[in-house]
């Protein structure tokens, strides 16, 4: 009985393997397993090789690792490309019609499990895309799970379709399940240990979590131009606009997007944009506008491999310094970077409160790995208390009848002045991209300029009280101290576990709040560390640079990855050992 199974299914795009992955994860999550789904696909619509990886375990884990227990190949390239990665005695499922694979084709011993996928589909009058459903049944049997857990998922997945569709899918899955039971009755090597039933788990990607977090945060308006990897944010809003009373607009370009969102926010509703680096690049002028006008805005930036179009369907953490310094002129901003879908939900909801509290832009940095992997998050996480706090919004009735209200009053300790919104009686003001006085009228007087710039910059100080120290995972006195941010957390934590098994102690100083930078806490935490290693998914070590800028501390050792693939914990372990 196994404590962790990693299952891969590969085929051409259009073979329906994406949904196979999430159905698999959902089926097991419902009965108490912890699951995770990652995907790899080229920036092409069809053709090429798409791969879904699902990890299932009765125990909690944080990332994928290099093991492969079961490989399901819907076309030959899948085996050619992945045969070197297989565990010893891994199971290989394929359609013998595609190719008659031999044990000698593989570098290590494997169990070959030819299953006539197409034949099974044809027998039940299914279409070729339905082979994925058959493989789900096959897999259930191979890991020793009960067929019923798949059946309920199929029912839910196709619930908007007609009954015959549901029935035929169930029949297909069952035929795969039965085929294994009948032809490979002794193949129990990959049976999973039983999991204890837990509270309901959500299977969702971080873009969906951003959407949910935004809804929780009271978002009413989103303007998002399509771009990988944030297209699921669009789908979330487009699909739920009517139900949730949200306006989602597809703008003509990203410039329009951020300006629409700023208009909506200025008018009084919580609003957001989302994009990847290239689309965000086009919003940089608008960001600066939000800064001077003090209009709250939440920006979800899903990073991918750059520069330019780069590798649009692959992951990277390349935009940390860019978002911190983006925009002409100087103005406050907040940069958050969730480590998984659970945090994406939480930080997005918080981002709206922060944006309103400080009347300034707040970033939620995700990346392709976060945004398109499916994470398993307990229901209770979403039910945590959250209160919408709109910050300093005036009540229409409090506005002085002598019309003396000043939108940008200077005598505010935290730099945040109470806002009116257009249409309020006696609340007139000018939201001005030019430097302005307390009312919003233009000014070029040296004294007024400095006063208004100082007011805005005061927010930096005010924010300090909200800036959490980075989270420390593991033993404070460990030999190795990793530093990381955002999505690199999972592999580092799993690597720490592996190191422990090798007799090494490690801890992690992890950042999800990147800016303003918690300099004092970091200086304290790192100055006593024995061996500090920076782990980032980029080529230059941007967090390390940030740490040095704010603390003077130089981190000599870096484990950097920038090939578009998320870290494997093993790579981090190797990195630690190599640089000894």
């Amino acid at each position, binding site marked *: 009985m196994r404590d962790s199974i990693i299952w891969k299914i590969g085929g051409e795009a259009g073979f329906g393997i994406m949904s196979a992955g999430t159905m698999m994860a959902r089926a097991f999550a419902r009965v108490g397993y912890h699951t995770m789904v990652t995907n790899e696909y080229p920036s092409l619509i069809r053709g090429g090789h798409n791969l879904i990886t699902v990890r299932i375990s009765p125990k909690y884990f944080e990332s994928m690792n290099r093991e492969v227990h079961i490989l399901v190949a819907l076309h030959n390239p899948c085996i050619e490309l992945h045969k070197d990665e297989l565990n010893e005695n891994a199971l290989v499922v394929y359609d013998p019609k595609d190719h008659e694979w031999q044990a000698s084709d593989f570098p290590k011993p494997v169990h070959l499990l030819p299953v006539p996928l197409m034949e099974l589909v044809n027998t039940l009058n299914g279409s070729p895309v339905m082979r994925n459903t058959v493989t789900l049944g096959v897999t259930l049997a191979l890991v020793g799970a009960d067929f019923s857990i798949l059946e309920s998922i199929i029912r839910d997945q196709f619930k908007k379709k007609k009954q015959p569709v549901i029935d035929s899918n169930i029949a297909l899955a069952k035929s795969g399940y039965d085929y294994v039971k009948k032809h490979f009755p002794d193949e129990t090597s990959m049976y999973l240990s039983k999991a204890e039933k837990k509270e309901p788990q959500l299977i969702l990607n971080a873009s969906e979590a951003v959407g949910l977090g935004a809804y929780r945060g009271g978002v009413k308006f989103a303007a998002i131009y399509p771009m990988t990897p944030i297209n699921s944010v669009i789908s979330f809003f487009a699909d739920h606009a009517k139900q949730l009373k949200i*306006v989602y607009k597809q703008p003509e370009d990203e410039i329009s997007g951020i300006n629409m969102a700023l208009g909506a926010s200025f008018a009084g509703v919580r609003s957001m944009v989302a994009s990847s680096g290239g689309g965000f690049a086009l919003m940089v002028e608008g960001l600066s506008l939000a800064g001077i006008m003090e209009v709250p805005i939440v920006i979800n930036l899903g990073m991918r491999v750059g520069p330019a179009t780069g590798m649009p369907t692959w992951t990277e953490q390349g935009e940390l310094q860019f978002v911190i310094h983006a925009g002409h002129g100087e103005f406050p901003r907040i940069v958050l970077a969730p480590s998984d879908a659970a945090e994406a939900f939480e930080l997005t909801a918080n981002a709206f409160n922060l944006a309103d509290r400080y009347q300034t832009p707040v970033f939620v940095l995700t990346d392709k790995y976060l945004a398109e992997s499916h994470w398993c998050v307990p*229901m209770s996480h979403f039910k945590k208390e959250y209160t919408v706090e709109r910050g300093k919004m005036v009540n229409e009735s409090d506005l002085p009848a002598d019309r003396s209200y000043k939108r940008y009053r200077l005598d505010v300790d935290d730099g945040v002045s109470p806002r009116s919104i257009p*249409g309020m009686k006696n609340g007139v003001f000018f939201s001005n991209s030019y430097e302005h006085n307390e009312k919003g009228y233009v000014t070029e007087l040296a004294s007024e300029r400095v006063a208004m710039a100082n007011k805005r910059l005061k927010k930096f100080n005010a924010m300090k009280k909200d800036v959490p120290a980075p989270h420390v995972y593991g033993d404070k006195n460990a030999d190795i101290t990793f530093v990381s941010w955002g999505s690199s957390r999972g592999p580092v934590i799993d690597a720490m576990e592996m190191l422990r098994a090798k007799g090494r102690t490690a801890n992690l100083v992890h950042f999800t709040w990147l800016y303003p930078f918690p300099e004092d806490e970091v200086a304290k935490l790192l100055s006593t560390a024995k061996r500090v290693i920076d782990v980032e998914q980029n080529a230059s070590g941007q967090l390390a640079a940030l740490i040095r800028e704010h603390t003077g501390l130089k981190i000599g050792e870096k484990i950097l990855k920038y090939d578009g693939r998320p870290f494997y914990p093993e790579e981090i372990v190797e990195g630690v050992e190599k640089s000894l």
Partner: protein
Amino acid sequence: MTLNSSVFAANHLPTWCPGCGDYGIWTALKEALVKQGIGSDDGLVVYGVGCHGNMYNWMNIYGFAGLHGRTLPVAQGVKLANHKLPVVVVSGDGDCLGEGGNHFLHAAKRNPDITVILHDNQVYGLTTGQASPTAKIGFVTKSTPDGAVDAPINPLLLAIAAGATYVARGFAGDTPGLIKLMSDAVEHKGFAVVDVLQPCVTFNKVNTYQWYRQRVYRLEDEKYVPDNKMKAIERAMEWGDRIPIGLFYKEIRPTSEDHEPALTGDPLIRVPVASEHFDSVLQEFV
């Protein structure tokens, strides 16, 4: 108390060059707002960056003076957040058709209930006189010392082609005519474009008040009926000894806001944050 245009008086005095066409447009806009019953607290003007946009400093009504070229996205965002708020855009030919050309196209396509006043002076005034997208061939400016060579953009033709539902042209020297066009534009439910022939006394020595006065004629004087796209296009292409002003085209079709399922009732700014659907949405992911 009856509304009058003095409610819009602000502390600043205009800094436009004496004789600038923007004065006439400004006067007309204030009167048009009054005619529509819109006072200082009741509406929003979104300004572009250019001489035209400087108007916000002497206009006491909710204002948004954003980035060069980005009036229309801002106005649409506002309108979607609060579709009960009257929104007028004050933009220039550079702002709206140069830097902001894409937004003009796509706003017309969506038909938000917004009025655009396009200050059409053929130059980039504020940056001291380069050619704007409406500059006519041969027009000498700082950026075209040998005269402009590109075909000028025709704002009316473009507006009609892209789907605007109220398309008019006024002349800054004809305040009464402008008031009528602007007031009707604000009243119109949909994307209304009022292109205004605006003499720039400093950087456009060709298209002066005089020059326009000799050429403009009123469409209504010719019993023109603005209900036909092809006819409107034909008139829009007329430019030379005779230049038509007035309403070229009008059509009623649902606005951008009408289409939004979330906007059937109160404006979004009044819709309380609700979590009644939160559980059911979470359930989709289990």
